């Protein structure tokens, strides 16, 4: 596999003693779109800030296209563009100057044609001589994207790119991300919206409490989404099941009232008929039968729950 970023045993303890990242191991493939999915405070910003060189790691290593991001920081950082989470931007510079400034910081010669095209792609060209303080929030975010792309990076980090962003910019952003991916740029975005990860990513890494809980292909996660559950409620408590059901993967709750059968809804034979028949033959009277489909959100909440997160931190809200 061709990894453009390789993170090994990365840990970050902030000065106040807070352990924001605990032994992170993560490989990011060249050219993929990876979503870092996790609730607020999970450590997403810390992780990408550490890769970008804004936060120093406490231990562990990060290789960016083979370059150690501390010892060989120049080679590593040249490849990276970062759009921060907050609208951290100057006030009195013009759009054109601030984008050119970033390009220069990354050691690149002036290239007015490239900047012109970039500003046009981001619908910023007619604002190029405006001072930053005159721009709306959405426009400022566009400028931040232009700055991050000003030196044509091979890796782009987008930290919560759609937080508080209007539909049009969101569409533009996904269009740009797709275009970048076509040209081989690796894109890493952080989000706490599941839909967002689902919509755009190739792979999804779930992070919470400074740990990566899962990294999986989005399509494989979608297959898990294909898993259904049949839930059978009994009238009377049942603690032993017919022998004919030995080969089923079944769960009964503590009170013996609810039976859960997990099956693959896409399979030819789901085994539902035989299950219900056997229950009937065994004389068990059923109170209710229903099916549920686990969503990515359920998977996520499960993961996060087993990690012991407070209920109010669950990323339940939907994007606007």
């Amino acid at each position: 596999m061709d990894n453009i970023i390789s993170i090994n045993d990365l840990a970050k303890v902030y000065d106040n003693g807070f352990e924001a990242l605990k032994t992170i191991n993560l490989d990011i493939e060249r050219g993929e779109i990876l979503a870092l999915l996790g609730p607020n405070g999970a450590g997403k910003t810390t992780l990408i800030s550490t890769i970008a060189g804004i936060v120093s790691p406490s231990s562990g290593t990060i290789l960016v296209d083979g370059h150690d991001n501390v010892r060989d920081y120049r080679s590593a950082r040249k490849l990276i563009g970062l759009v921060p989470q907050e609208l951290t931007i100057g006030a009195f510079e013009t759009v054109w100057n601030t984008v050119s400034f970033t390009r220069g910081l990354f050691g690149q010669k002036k290239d007015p044609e490239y900047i012109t095209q970039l500003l046009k792609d981001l619908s910023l060209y007619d604002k190029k001589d405006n001072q930053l303080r005159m721009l709306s929030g959405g426009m400022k975010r566009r400028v931040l994207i232009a700055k991050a792309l000003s030196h044509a990076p091979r890796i782009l980090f987008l930290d919560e790119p759609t937080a508080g962003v209007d539909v049009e910019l969101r569409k533009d952003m996904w269009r740009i991300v797709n275009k970048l991916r076509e040209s081989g740029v690796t894109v890493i975005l952080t989000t706490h919206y599941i839909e967002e990860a689902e919509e755009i990513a190739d792979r999804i890494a779930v992070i919470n409490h400074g740990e990566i809980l899962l990294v999986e292909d989005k399509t494989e996660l979608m297959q898990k989404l294909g898993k259904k559950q049949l839930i059978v409620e009994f009238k009377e408590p049942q603690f032993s099941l017919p022998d004919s059901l030995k080969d089923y993967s079944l769960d009964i709750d503590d009170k013996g009232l609810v039976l859960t059968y997990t099956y693959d809804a896409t399979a030819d034979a789901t085994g539902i008929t035989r299950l219900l028949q056997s229950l009937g033959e065994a004389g068990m009277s059923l109170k209710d039968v229903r099916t549920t489909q686990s969503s990515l959100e359920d998977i996520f909440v499960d993961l996060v729950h087993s990690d012991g997160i407070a209920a109010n931190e669950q990323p339940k809200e939907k994007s606007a």
Partner: protein
Amino acid sequence: MNFAAIRVIYRAEMQRAINTLFQTLASPVISTSLYFVVFGSAIGSRIQTIDGVSYGLFIVPGLTMLTILTQSISNASFGIYFPKFSGTIYEVLSAPLSFFEALIGYVGAAATKSFVIGVVILLTASLFVDLQIEHPIWMLTFLVLTCVSFSLFGFIIGLWADSFEKLQIVPILVITPLVFLGGSFYSINMLPPFWQTVSLFNPVVYLVSGFRWSFFEVSDVNVWTSLTMILIFLGVCLAVVSWMFKTGYKLKE
């Protein structure tokens, strides 16, 4: 070396001064003129010459030093404090750029601004008095060294400060007294012996004395001593900055 980065930082910092060119230049010109009207003409006419130099002329080097010290510190400290405060420093931190390259950009720009202001003050002064410069090379050396080392000092303050109060406290509590007690407006030989000795611990005394010597060949301390002292100050600032660099002091988490 990432020269492109140094250039854009330098240029952006200079642009800030150019955008506010009027304030940048008007304030030193006006205050210098006021000093001349008050001290040079009104009061100065009643003060006898000091070491054979008329009072109006005598205060020119000290006045220039007073302004470039304050300007260097406030320019350089604000230049680095503001991006830190607003968060835009993330860009510089994530760029393929060493701390020293950033330093050259920021401190270079602050020192340039102070130098220009210093020259403007001397030009303004020459409208009021007949300014002669006995040792132009020494004069430029002192001017440049002061602009650079105090811009560096300002940069350190800007890095250290985590509030606007701290940003202003050093100039107000330390620099202003040192400058006023540093012989800008008098010769320290005019002080009682005890205070003369105390003054020798004031680094500004050496700056003003050396700078004044380059104009009139009169000085409180030997010119080489002055040069040595300012080089030591520069060395200390460089050492502090290197230490800050090694520890990532207050820039990186």
